[in-house]
């Protein structure tokens, strides 16, 4: 049994012409049907594909491969630039939009936030995107503020004033603070 394992280990090298059987191994091979079957299999496998026609010129293969690698690297770079460009454009758009919110003609206490919503302690009754707020006239805006902030003006214990509580001079001061 030990001879079979040793012979098995040597078979690839002998099949590839890197080694030869010694007399003891040759005797074992001549007498062992299992090893003969394995040896036949190993020889057949080591010869498999030797009859294939030669492949294309290695230089042509290498050139084609390197061109593909270069093209792919170029594509990857372009994709990175595109993603960076999109990210930069998105950042600029966001900054402009935010800036409009900050310097708009009709600022409100919620200006600069993406959405004006009802206070958290009440069910959401109102959800108005800011660009719509920008289009409102001052009386309409005041009216809207009255609608969404009654608890602050009537019976609220909070001391923070709402926009509706400010007179014109106070409003000017707030505006000048926001606009720098």
């Amino acid at each position, binding site marked *: 049994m030990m001879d079979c394992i040793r012979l*098995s280990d040597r*078979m*690839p*090298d002998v*099949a*590839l012409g*890197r080694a030869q059987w010694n007399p003891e191994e040759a005797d074992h091979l001549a007498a062992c049907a299992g090893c003969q*079957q*394995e040896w036949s*299999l*190993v020889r*057949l*496998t*080591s010869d*498999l*594909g*030797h*009859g*294939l*026609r*030669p*492949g*294309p010129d*290695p*230089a042509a*293969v*290498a*050139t*084609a*491969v*390197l061109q*593909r*690698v270069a093209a*792919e690297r170029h594509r990857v770079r372009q994709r990175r630039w595109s993603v960076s460009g999109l990210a930069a454009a998105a950042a600029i758009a966001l900054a402009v939009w935010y800036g409009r919110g900050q310097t708009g003609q009709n600022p409100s206490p919620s200006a600069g936030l993406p959405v004006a919503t009802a206070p958290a302690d009440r069910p959401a009754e109102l959800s108005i995107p800011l660009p719509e707020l920008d289009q409102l006239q001052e009386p309409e805006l005041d009216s809207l503020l009255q609608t969404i902030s009654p608890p602050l003006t009537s019976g609220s214990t909070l001391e923070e004033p709402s926009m509706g509580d400010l007179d014109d001079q106070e409003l000017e001061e707030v505006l000048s603070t926001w606009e720098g």
Partner: protein
Amino acid sequence: MSASATPTPLTDLALVAAYRSGDEQAATELVRRHAAAIGRFLYSSGAGPSEIDDLVQETFFRAFRRLDSWRAEASFRSWLFTISGNLLRDEFRKQKGRRMLPLEDHDLPDRADPHADLMAKEAGERLRQGLARLPRLQREVFLLRVQEGVDYQQIAAALGTTPGAARVHYHHAVKRLKELME
């Protein structure tokens, strides 16, 4: 009169380093060294002869695209074999299990004895079919060992297993192939 010294061929590691430094001739040399062996490996694993050139090119493309992932623990050729094995697996999946492609007559050399030629072809085809039916690890261990003479240490490094496990895979492959070839 001085004896002309034969230049020592660069190792694969040195060629890879040269390629990384911009030497495209090094890439050509790597292809020249390994393309035929990769072709035989692909053919033995069940690839059709007409597909081999494309698959060899794809193997080198994948290899050069991510040379950084070659850790020289395994030989460059063994690493290429694992890439070829992955590639072939992808191809088999695309073909939904159609693992064997017809052997094309013009790809084998003519022999003087037509009967011997036929017998050899039949035996070769049975062996290819048997190899294609083996689990991937068994097939790759067996082919690396028998066609390339790679030792179990190197095979283990290339295939991400242990030398002992590689030896077991080899003997399982032999056992199954013996059964399939009977």
